[in-house]
């Protein structure tokens, strides 16, 4: 056995994985590994609509800011788009608690790999890793705590932005142009279908994604629109060759106000 010991080092593929490290050394910290309860919690908090689309410089991600518990608003200012590393982000929809935990774990996983190995995972590798983490959540998903994120990033090798959607079993599907997730996703997707064009500039891409979110908020009770009274606006992020960037709130406010003004002018409100 002792003579075999060095060989085990070669067979340990999980050396750079934070999730495997937790599983091995602090299993109580791994989300979703606890004993499953028979009944789902009555009304878990849900995040609603997130979307992502390609544009000229990379990808844009946007999400509304509302979380709901049943028919109640649970939070008006929740953040649904998380930076996972310099060149990628994850937008969460579904049960907010497990989803945010997953985003945090995913971020740590990528950072851990980068530090241990001294280089970044490929975008493909990151997307696969997230898929495995969603699969870990399957028992919880069967009880109603569904987490279905969107993952988007800039692929350095190919020089383009790419985006991936997932299903609850961890199935990973690459989308070429745009996608939306969450309760208002159908409306957002319909809107994107009409408005999205190839190689849009940043300004146009921002406007299109906010149009889609406002449409989703219009049709879906769970999704929050721009809140002019409290000054809460959707969060918008861009991921390009030069990294993950926040679009400043002032800019988002200006675009939102422009869209709303146009809609008012058309007087039928659509």
């Amino acid at each position, binding site marked *: 056995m002792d003579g075999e010991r060095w060989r085990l080092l070669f067979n340990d593929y999980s050396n750079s994985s934070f999730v495997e*490290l937790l599983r091995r050394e*602090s299993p109580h*910290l791994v989300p979703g590994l606890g004993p499953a309860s028979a009944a789902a919690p009555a009304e878990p908090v849900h995040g609603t609509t997130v979307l992502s689309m390609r544009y000229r410089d990379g990808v844009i991600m946007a999400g509304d800011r509302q979380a709901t518990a049943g028919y109640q608003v649970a939070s008006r200012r929740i953040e649904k788009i998380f930076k996972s590393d310099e060149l990628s982000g994850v937008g969460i929809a579904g049960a907010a608690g497990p989803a945010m935990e997953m985003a945090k774990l995913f971020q740590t996983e990528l950072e*851990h790999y980068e*530090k*241990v190995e001294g280089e970044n995972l490929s975008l493909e590798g990151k997307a696969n890793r997230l898929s495995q983490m969603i699969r870990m959540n399957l028992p919880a998903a069967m009880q109603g705590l569904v987490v279905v994120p969107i993952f988007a990033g800039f692929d350095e090798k190919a020089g383009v932005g790419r985006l991936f959607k997932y299903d609850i079993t961890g199935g990973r599907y690459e989308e070429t142009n745009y996608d939306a997730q969450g309760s208002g996703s159908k409306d957002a997707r319909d809107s994107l279908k009409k408005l999205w064009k190839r190689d849009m500039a940043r300004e146009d891409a921002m406007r299109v994604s906010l149009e889609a979110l406002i449409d989703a908020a219009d049709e879906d009770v769970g999704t929050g629109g721009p809140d002019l009274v409290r000054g809460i606006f959707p969060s918008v992020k861009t991921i390009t060759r030069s990294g993950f960037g926040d679009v400043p709130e002032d800019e988002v406010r200006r675009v939102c106000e422009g869209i709303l003004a146009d809609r008012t002018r058309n007087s039928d409100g659509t």
Partner: protein
Amino acid sequence: MPLPYYVSPEQMMKDKAEYARKGISRGRSLVTLECGDGILLVAENPSTLLHKISEIYDRIAFAGVGKYNEFENLRIAGIRHADVKGYSYSRGDVTAKALANAYSQALGNIFTQDIKPFEVEVLVAEVGDTNGAKSEIYHILYDGTIEDERNYAAMGGQADEIRRFLKDHYQEGMTLGDALQLGVRALTVTQNKTLTERDLEVAVLDRTKAQRKFRRIPLEALGQLLGAGSKPC
């Protein structure tokens, strides 16, 4: 059956220490300096792929000298310690002090219990934040001895001479360029050669950066800094 030789504990420790010191002194040296905008780490290291300096966490960097595989193991253990702690508490709760203590315990245990001690010295540096918190530099020796250093530290083969040199020449609040030039001069103090950017591995814990402060200085930038000197940090 021959009786095992009796070796007094004192002798045994002495032998081990001598063995470890010999291993370390064969390696090239490394210095770290506090400068205006952070902490600079400079190592003589001709390899661009095998690093002696590395990021541990937001404000914390690691540096090792001696046997590569041994300090590489310690480096990964440090990243694991920091990431688990940051994940289970919060990012702000990961401190260089706790990490340095863990290294000290680990090296101390290895030194007393294993037949072969680690032939390494490691350094843990944490840059203070912009509202004036102090930077911390911990230096841990092969036997677990831990020292907290102020302003500058040196380790490796010629550490004593380098330390003496830095004591005479170090100034507070240097720019990055000045600190780098001083560091390089310190590394060459015992040898009759000049070091170019190709012989160096340089990284900085940059206070002005957001969240993750660690940044490697790439070759071209290094050449410029070495040429120009007194550029702002």
